[in-house]
């Protein structure tokens, strides 16, 4: 069977886990296997509630006081026990920071392979073939796993599947897994999570970037773009001229002499696309560019080329986003 594990993110099912469910449902259907969804550890019960209408064979609950907050020690022990008990063929999660932190422990504990950060699945007959990126995403590789391995761990890269595609229909049963943990199992301890004010931002960590160029024409128009960025949950960045003129601090600069970024979405506003800028962002997974000039070089690398007046588009878009 296929086992998908839901991850808790501040009380909700992590979006990566939703994508993992889609992956699980897809694999289960292609391989003719059953799908189980495991809600374990932190907020397990609430996760189970939230997943109640996902189509699956069952929704397994594994709770214990000692894993009421995440720990690599605790989660890896619990999951290992679950796997030993249920022998799933594939265990699927999204490739989140948490998964990177504890799933390899399970791999080593049980001597089973963990194929991480998968971008797509194809099928060789009835054998799934997993692809992942290598060499800084310059190449990709198909991975072959040991067919005799009782269980294979998998994690999928964000947006490899879309959470929109979750099949609904509920699950048959809701078994409760007996978690056995004692204090020897958990050696580490953790403090509550916290946020920090961003002084000197690391743009390379941003998921969405709204970037502004000379087309903005005046420093007075910067706040308008900042509002858009805020509405999108994005970091604001810029091309070099904007920084040179002092309209934004230099750590916001993207380009060959600034930061090199590859966010999920690079939303450029009034940037022509000079080569010194483009080399800093062409690795972005999705590029939307707004520019008045149809011939602007940025359109060569954009996924979506918006030919129009940013002065009108940006405020309207911000308004729509805030709704």
């Amino acid at each position: 069977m296929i086992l998908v594990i839901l991850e808790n993110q501040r009380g909700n099912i992590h979006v990566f886990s939703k994508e993992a469910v889609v992956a699980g449902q897809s694999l289960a259907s292609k391989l003719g296997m059953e799908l189980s969804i495991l809600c374990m550890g932190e907020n397990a019960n609430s996760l189970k509630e939230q997943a109640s209408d996902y189509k699956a064979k069952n929704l397994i609950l594994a709770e214990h006081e000692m894993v009421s907050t995440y720990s690599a020690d605790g989660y890896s022990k619990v999951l290992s026990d679950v796997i030993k008990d249920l022998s799933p063929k594939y265990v699927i999660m999204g490739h989140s920071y948490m998964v990177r932190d504890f799933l390899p422990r399970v791999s080593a504990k049980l001597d089973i392979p963990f194929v991480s950060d998968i971008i797509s699945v194809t099928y060789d007959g009835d054998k799934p073939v997993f692809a992942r990126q290598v060499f800084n995403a310059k190449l990709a590789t198909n991975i072959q796993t040991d067919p005799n391995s009782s269980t294979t761990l998998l994690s999928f890269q964000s947006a490899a599947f879309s959470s929109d595609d979750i099949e609904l229909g509920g699950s048959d049963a809701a078994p409760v897994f007996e978690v056995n943990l004692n204090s020897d199992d958990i050696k580490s301890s953790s403090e509550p999570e916290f946020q920090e004010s961003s002084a000197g931002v690391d743009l390379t960590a941003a998921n969405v970037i709204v970037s502004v160029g000379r087309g903005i024409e005046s420093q007075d128009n910067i706040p308008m773009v900042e509002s858009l960025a805020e509405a999108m949950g994005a970091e604001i960045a810029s091309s070099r001229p904007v920084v040179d003129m002092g309209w934004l601090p230099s750590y916001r600069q993207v380009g060959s002499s600034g930061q090199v970024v590859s966010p999920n979405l690079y939303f450029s506003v009034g940037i022509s696309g000079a080569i010194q800028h483009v080399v800093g962002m062409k690795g972005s997974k999705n590029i939307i560019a707004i520019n008045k000039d149809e011939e602007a070089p940025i359109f060569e690398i954009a996924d979506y080329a918006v030919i129009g007046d940013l002065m009108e588009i940006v405020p309207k878009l911000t308004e729509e986003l805030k709704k």
Partner: protein
Amino acid sequence: MLDRVVGFKNNTIIMKIAVLTKAIPSYESSIRIDSTSKWIDESVVNFTVNESDSYALEEALQIKEKLDNGTEVVVVTMGSQDNTSKVLKDGLAKGADRAIFIQNEDSNTDPLSIAKLFSDNLKDENFDLVFSGLQSDDLGSGQTGVLLGELLGMSTATLGIETDIQEGKIKVKRELESGWFQWVTLPFPASVSIQSGINERRYPSLKGIMGAKRKETKVINGQLSDIPKQNFMNLFMPKTEKSTEKIEGDVDGIVAKLMDILKNKLRIVS
């Protein structure tokens, strides 16, 4: 926990810290699939130290200097002789006390096998701390540090962006998603994977470069104990069908289209 004599100096434990360092193709190298399709053509590649590993080394060296009690930093690498020698030289020149080279000429792509090779050959060293880079810029699995930690019975943490050595334990500030952080406390022995940017890396001084020659490098012939449980079937070029979709028209139309893309296609907003 420790099968060896624990030394104390200045009221602090004298530690042994291993830093796993990998030689990987530099970012500027041409990456070309070789004739077997299972690996790249190494003849056109310039091998250099994996970036997050160099941060891990710097962190270990800073701990050594702060403790100033004879704590040992050992730089460890695995691979072929040609590619890895500069990694060890660099580590020793920067201040590592000695080096361990696990020689293995195969292009190993199974994280678990790699970790087992390390574990088999390092377990007798009884390291208190193992530092590794978050992930390597060639395979990028990001698993080695955690796998090795589990195999050696250590506690583990990943994405360390700050460390704090205390009596018998290490506190690690982990980077979480979306700008959140968390401090975790791990007892020794511990394996921590280190994120780039955690510190300002030093450059080897002239004394360091010249002194590196005199430091010990242990060469071990590394043999895989098992058959790898996963490996590369074939490398291929990712398809880059960049089709640009033009969006024109009146402002409202454009905004509506953009909302659709942001919400439904890219799922940036809900």
